């Protein structure tokens, strides 16, 4: 469902949000950790890692902090600690172009000091969530299987796509309706998920494929798999289900102001899971 919002109305809403102080202006010391207001006081804290070249970190801070009400903290990639976050907290690797995507997307980011802690956090069962470039980093760091290749059409694709929820008995997509496709934007050039035949079999067997590209009716067609991913994979989790990576951007579709709240639906599924726990 698209809700049309005209430019004037958008400006007016942003103006009033700023005036009321609910809109978080970009921190001047952008790379220093800062804490968003906690609205609902969920027990879990969120850490958003900032690499050189990350560009979805502020969006993520805003959505997780202001919209969903988590206590949210930025973590600069040079830090060798997780800014006080513990085993029950969630680390997010946001989208962007870490290290300019040099060599391969996400290949260099895994050498950042903070990644040692992120890997440790994941191995101890902590939650780690990678979106777009974050997904690529998780694959390159070996926290998720497979790799993301150049899109089959060789182009950077920026558009809304539909996602089929393939598994709803995991922390990330818990309870989501499998028959209702979610609509979310993608913005990537390297999003063609690839894994060998054995690896794919294992993913299917363990039900690690959480999201697939589909059409608006939820059907998996060749056309809907626009980037040519193996088995139309858009998002997977690891075997232990505590690490999740996906190419589309839920944080760009999490407010009615933007005309689409499907991203919020997805992110809330995880939030609800954590409240239930």
């Amino acid at each position, binding site marked *: 469902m698209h809700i049309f919002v005209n430019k004037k109305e958008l400006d007016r809403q942003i103006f009033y949000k700023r005036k009321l102080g609910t809109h978080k202006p970009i921190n001047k010391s952008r790379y220093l950790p800062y804490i968003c207001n906690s609205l609902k006081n969920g027990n879990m804290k969120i850490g958003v890692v900032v690499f050189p070249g990350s560009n979805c970190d502020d969006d993520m801070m805003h959505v997780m902090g202001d919209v969903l009400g988590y206590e949210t903290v930025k973590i600069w990639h040079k830090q060798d600690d997780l800014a006080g976050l513990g085993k029950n907290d969630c680390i997010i690797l946001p989208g962007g172009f870490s290290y300019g995507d040099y060599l391969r997307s996400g*290949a260099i980011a895994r050498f950042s000091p903070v990644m040692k802690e992120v890997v440790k956090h994941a191995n101890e069962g902590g939650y780690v969530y990678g979106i777009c470039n974050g997904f690529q980093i998780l694959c390159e760091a070996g926290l998720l299987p497979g790799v993301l290749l*150049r899109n089959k059409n*060789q182009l950077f694709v920026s558009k809304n796509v539909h996602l089929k929820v393939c598994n709803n008995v995991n922390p990330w997509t818990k309870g989501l309706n499998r028959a209702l496709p979610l609509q979310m934007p993608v913005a990537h050039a390297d999003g063609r998920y690839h*894994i060998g035949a054995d690896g794919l079999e294992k993913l299917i067997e363990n039900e690690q494929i959480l999201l697939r590209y589909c059409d608006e009716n939820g059907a998996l067609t060749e056309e809907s798999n626009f980037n040519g991913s193996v088995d139309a994979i858009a998002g997977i989790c690891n075997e232990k289900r505590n690490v999740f990576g996906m190419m589309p951007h839920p944080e760009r579709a999490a407010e009615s102001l933007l005309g689409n709240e499907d991203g919020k639906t997805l992110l809330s599924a995880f939030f609800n899971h954590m409240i239930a726990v």
Partner: protein
Amino acid sequence: MQTYKANIKILPLKELLDPQGKAVANNIGSLGITGVQDVRIGKFIELYLTAESKAAAESEVEKACKELLANQIMENYEYEIEEFQAD
């Protein structure tokens, strides 16, 4: 210590679609070159390093390829190592 130069070739795996190569193959005909069957595009890396011996240099380059320069899920690599004298 001797300086060595490693010439490293990295190519996408044969069974993988190489859209870059395909785009070139599909369009190279407009130059009047008609016999092109296939094009695959990869990377060529020159890496200079000092090491005790050629064998030691080789093990360093192998490690670099395996753990950083190539991702073996999608790429193959091969390299040659030669002694290097700076001018």
